[in-house]
């Protein structure tokens, strides 16, 4: 039993990393929590559903198609809605409220187009999964874990070794200084958007293949992203990984001892405690 709990924690951690990585990059560069990113999980899931239901497309092509659709929609929304607001120097509060509006719009649009019932992306045979130390892990869950590890490595390398990584680090530290130094802020935001929507698309498709998709799946992912990004901070992606491990361990222990219905509360209690401790620490430093 304890082995299954450990395997479940590893899978949850990987899932939280997949979900939070897009929010992390977006928050790091834009300095506001982009709620609309939560809609990309459902957009990718439903895009894949639209192409695979009643058709015999290979899964790889369907994933590519879903990812392209998600990137196009997310990038278009950023250019049409958020870029004009950023150009007019809108405050982070205004941008956050706009992102909330976009999320509600997209969530309801998907409910209208595809219905409110849950849908499954997996059409193959249901198997027992791979046995690992008296615990079971399915093939999709192995893909989730491997994808999460690859994403962390790629993001870390991108941060250190690519022009975009250096530019985004500069923008995250001081936007005005980066602009003066010649970094095109909107180009960096555009790239960020593409990367975020790609990550969101991968996460949404894997969640859909492992569990199921529904129009409101973005809300749960938004909460996870909020906790992991705010508690982990934006300085180092490994902090985000540590918080994801802590969060999944806390939730799995809570499920073991209390009830699975309190999982969301555990995550948000963690966020509340962190925010309170952080505010007290800031006050003590000022004194």
């Amino acid at each position, binding site marked *: 039993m304890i082995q299954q709990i450990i395997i479940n924690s590893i899978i949850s951690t990987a899932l939280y990393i997949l979900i939070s990585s897009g929010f992390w990059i977006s928050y790091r560069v834009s300095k*506001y*929590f982009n709620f609309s990113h939560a809609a990309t999980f459902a957009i990718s899931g439903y895009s894949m559903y639209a192409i695979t239901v009643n058709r015999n497309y290979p899964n790889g092509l369907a994933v590519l198609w879903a990812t392209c659709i998600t990137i196009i929609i997310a990038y278009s929304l950023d250019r049409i*809605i958020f870029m*004009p*607001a950023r150009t007019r120097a*809108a*405050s*982070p*509060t*205004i941008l*956050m*409220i*706009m992102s*909330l*509006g*976009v*999320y*509600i*719009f*997209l*969530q*309801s*649009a998907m*409910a*209208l187009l595809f219905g*409110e019932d849950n849908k499954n992306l997996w059409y193959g045979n249901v198997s027992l999964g791979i046995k690992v130390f008296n615990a079971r892990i399915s093939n999709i869950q192995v893909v989730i874990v491997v994808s999460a590890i690859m994403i962390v490595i790629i993001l870390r390398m991108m941060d250190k070794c690519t022009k975009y990584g250096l530019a985004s680090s500069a923008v995250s530290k001081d936007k005005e200084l980066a602009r003066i130094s010649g970094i095109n802020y909107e180009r960096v935001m555009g790239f960020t958007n593409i990367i975020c929507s790609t990550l969101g698309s991968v996460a949404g498709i894997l969640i859909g293949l492992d569990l199921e998709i529904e129009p409101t799946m973005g*809300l749960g992912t938004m*909460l996870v992203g*909020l906790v992991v990004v*705010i508690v982990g901070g934006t300085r180092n992606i490994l902090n985000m990984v540590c918080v994801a491990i802590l969060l999944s361990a806390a939730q799995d222990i809570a499920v073991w001892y209390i*009830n699975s*219905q*309190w999982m*969301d*509360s555990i995550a*948000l*209690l963690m*966020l*509340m405690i962190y*925010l*309170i401790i*952080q*505010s*007290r620490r*800031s*006050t003590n430093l000022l004194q």
Partner: protein
Amino acid sequence: MNYIAQIIVIIEIYIMLGISLNLVGGYSGILTLCTAAFYGLGAYICAIMAINYNTNFAINVVITCVSTGIIAFMVGNQGKRMCDEHFLFLTVAFQIIISCIFKNWIALTKGPMGITGIPNIYIFGLNFDSSFDFVLLAGIFCGFSFWVCMWIVNSPFGRILKTIREDEVFALAGGKNVGNYKVIVFVVGSLIASVAGALYAHYITFIDPSSFTVMESIFILSIVIIGGAGSLWGPVVGAVVLVSLPEILRFVGMPSSVAANLRQIIYGALLVVFMMWRPQGLLGQYSFQKLSTKE
């Protein structure tokens, strides 16, 4: 006519909720997403008192206000040291935890099944059981909330709130205890929301957790933004527009599942459009742009 009376009662309740958030977000510049949590707390405390202890509505409202006030003080006291963004996240976390408690503490709240059979309101021997009676009762509470808001914003206290909204550092430099002002206005806002919840519980006579989720808080935020933040009449206009809109869709003859999603699409679109072109709303004065804030 009964149908119109029902719409008016709901509009009056949402005006109170809009006033509650407008005081905190529109006049003080502290954006929160936990109005529905206090709305739900008011509804549940009143319903539990009325059903389990058979207490009078007046006593229930007093107990609701005291309990909600204590909880709001605890949350606000922790949040007063935080920057605006972190306080918003704190309120989101609080809202979702409260929603989880409503849904999962089955022994107290009956969970997703909700609480049914909430009795009518009896005040001084008068029984408020019809929609027309509730129009009057909710109108009195709504009018009182409006008067309280007007009294606060036109007082020296209100001027300090506006200073905090426009430039928090300037308010601090002027020697004002910004934290305490924020806590006080947060508590007052939560009291108004909890009284609205008490009215809602007795009017509908059934409450369940789905009425007090984070989406409800976002809807109340939409009322304030579209009506106008920082204006006395903003929440009134916002509530009338946003509560009447689904009723207009009903007359178009759409199936309820389509109408529900279309309503949400319109709310989302309105939020985006207003934030892009008129962030201060139809009648408001505050456009969510602070000059400086405590980091």
